[in-house]
């Protein structure tokens, strides 16, 4: 009898543990730390830095040179990625007491005020094999250890992947360091779409044939771009599919046709067209080519952009006498104006959560602003030069935009509070219309 009871109580324990696991795994809306261990029993779920907190204290982090030929390059990329987020303080390598070959000892770090230590090694054969470890000084233990392999030409994406893993281990949120930015670049009067890493590196020109190209917009899965281009004296809308490397003209007519945005399901897109004489907004299905008219007015209606939940469209209209941002339901009903300050507000783009809209507003020069979709909370983020075409990073923590503050128009990135504005395209390259990839 006693024995039987013991067994049952063990069962009971298992059940309780399982129940806790169920609670932990399924209940929190965003599990801050998904455990990969055995059934997630050790549910510490430590978030080292709460990036949503307004009173954020930066996390002091030490990042070793990973050694070997590429070690410094790799650790510098990781360091640059993490530093730009604004939530880490990098403690310089010169201060480290522990040599890279010594094993991690928290006593070597507390005097330096370091809370997190990143160590790693690189083996260079035919491929790069990288081992990275993350240590928590306070708890005195290793919290992440991973081995990565990649071809040597992929050293940057490899390093960004490590940075993503470190970022996620410490914040519970996915990093954006592997995301890319599409943009329009101009080379001797010829425009083309370029794709680059989020830090401006590895920039590639697509080599499209259309004459003037504008407004590249990503599909939500990051495998397609829809854009507007002029060819044969006509503005058409083109869909570029990276998977089969094909470009398809999906709409053209007399007059002006400008995207717009792909809907999250990728089957429809919104655009502005003057095919009926006046610039109005339309939604077109890529499946059966049907077109639905969303607005009918004598004014300019342009730059429609769909909210992440597909429910609303933000756009620009001059129906009130000057270009302003409006929001309506996706079927064209319930149109509301949301900008009332300034006489020239254009280029709206939604945050990934749909809680903010970023746009360019004219205050003698063009500046970047964010506003809530209900028209409250207007905040100016830039002051220098003319700043246009803003869009959010996939995690909503950064914004890319174009600016002429340093002379030639180029692509910049900044944090969503306007901090750390920096140019990421080459000084002499004329570049505009940047769009952050969704992943």
């Amino acid at each position: 009898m006693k024995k039987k009871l013991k067994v049952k109580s063990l069962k009971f324990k298992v059940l309780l543990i399982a129940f806790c696991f169920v609670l932990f795994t399924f209940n929190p809306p965003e599990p801050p730390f998904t455990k990969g261990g055995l059934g997630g029993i050790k549910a510490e779920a430590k978030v080292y830095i709460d990036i949503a907190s307004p009173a954020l204290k930066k996390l002091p982090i030490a990042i070793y040179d990973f050694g070997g030929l590429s070690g410094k390059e790799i650790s510098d990329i990781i360091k640059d990625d993490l530093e730009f987020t604004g939530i880490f303080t990098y403690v310089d390598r010169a201060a480290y007491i522990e040599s890279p070959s010594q094993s991690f000892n928290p006593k070597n770090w507390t005097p330096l005020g370091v809370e997190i230590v990143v160590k790693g090694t690189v083996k260079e054969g035919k491929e790069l094999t990288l081992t990275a470890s993350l240590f928590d000084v306070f708890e005195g233990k290793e919290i992440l250890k991973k081995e990565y392999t990649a071809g040597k030409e992929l050293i940057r994406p490899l390093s960004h992947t490590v940075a993503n893993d470190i970022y996620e281990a410490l914040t519970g949120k996915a990093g954006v360091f592997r995301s890319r930015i599409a943009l329009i670049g101009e080379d001797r009067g010829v425009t083309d779409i370029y794709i680059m890493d989020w830090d401006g590196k590895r920039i590639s020109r697509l080599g499209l044939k259309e004459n003037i190209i504008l407004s590249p917009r990503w599909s939500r899965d990051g495998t397609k771009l829809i854009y507007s281009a002029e060819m044969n004296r006509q503005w058409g809308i083109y869909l570029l599919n990276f998977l089969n490397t094909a470009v398809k003209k999906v709409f053209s007519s007399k007059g002006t046709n400008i995207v717009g945005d792909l809907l999250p399901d990728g089957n429809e897109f919104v655009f502005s067209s003057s095919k009926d004489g006046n610039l109005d907004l339309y939604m077109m299905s890529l499946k059966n080519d049907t077109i639905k008219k969303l607005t009918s007015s004598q004014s300019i209606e342009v730059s429609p952009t769909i909210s992440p939940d597909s429910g609303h469209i933000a756009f620009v209209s001059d129906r009130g006498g000057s270009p302003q941002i409006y929001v309506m339901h996706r079927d064209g009903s319930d149109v509301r104006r949301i900008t009332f300050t300034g006489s020239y507000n254009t280029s709206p783009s939604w945050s990934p959560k749909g809680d903010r809209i970023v746009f360019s507003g004219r205050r003698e020069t063009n500046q970047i602003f964010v506003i809530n979709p209900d028209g409250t909370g207007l905040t100016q983020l830039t002051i220098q030069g003319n700043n246009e075409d803003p869009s959010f990073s996939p995690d909503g923590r950064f914004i890319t935009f174009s600016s002429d503050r340093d002379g030639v128009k180029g692509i910049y990135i900044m944090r969503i509070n306007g901090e750390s504005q920096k140019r990421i395209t080459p000084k002499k390259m004329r570049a505009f219309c940047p769009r952050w990839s969704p992943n």
Partner: protein
Amino acid sequence: MKKILVLVLVLTFGSLLISCAQRKVVQPQQPTVTQQETKAKAPEGKTEQKVPEEKITEQQIAKIETKEVETLKYTEEKSIFEDIHFDFDKYDIRPDAKPIVQSVADWLIKNKSSEVLIEGHCDERGTNEYNLALGDRRAKATKDYLVALGVASSRIDIISYGEEKPLCTEKTEECWQKNRRAHFVLVKSKSK
């Protein structure tokens, strides 16, 4: 009592337990970790990871091809008309532009076989997309005025170039004014 409690728990959480158990088996034993599953791993065991393939590779970029080629259905002749100009962010025909549009109309009425393409242009201020829209309105306002003066609408084509084809690239009001224009191009259909 305990027995009953255990039984109740078994019944209540049975199904949840099954899903848990499935998770337990699948997650930690996954040999290759994809980018999406790159959550924090228990540090005890070193996790192998291959850096995932690039979503958009250089090879793909090199292969991209546009099938469409430029095949204009008409030839363009050098413009014999002056440009007309617009105020900043406006698309109404200014008084100083009206005599010019009138001369274009007179010429088109006399030369019945000719057709005209009106290009709408903007200065560099403002965003590319909105300027494309504004250029469309400038070209359309000019076309409407020509039609009002008696030119058949079928003889007039319009296109907007927004701020993409400036005549002048300095950042001065004089230069911007030159760029805020409608430009008349006489065209000849290739088929004729």
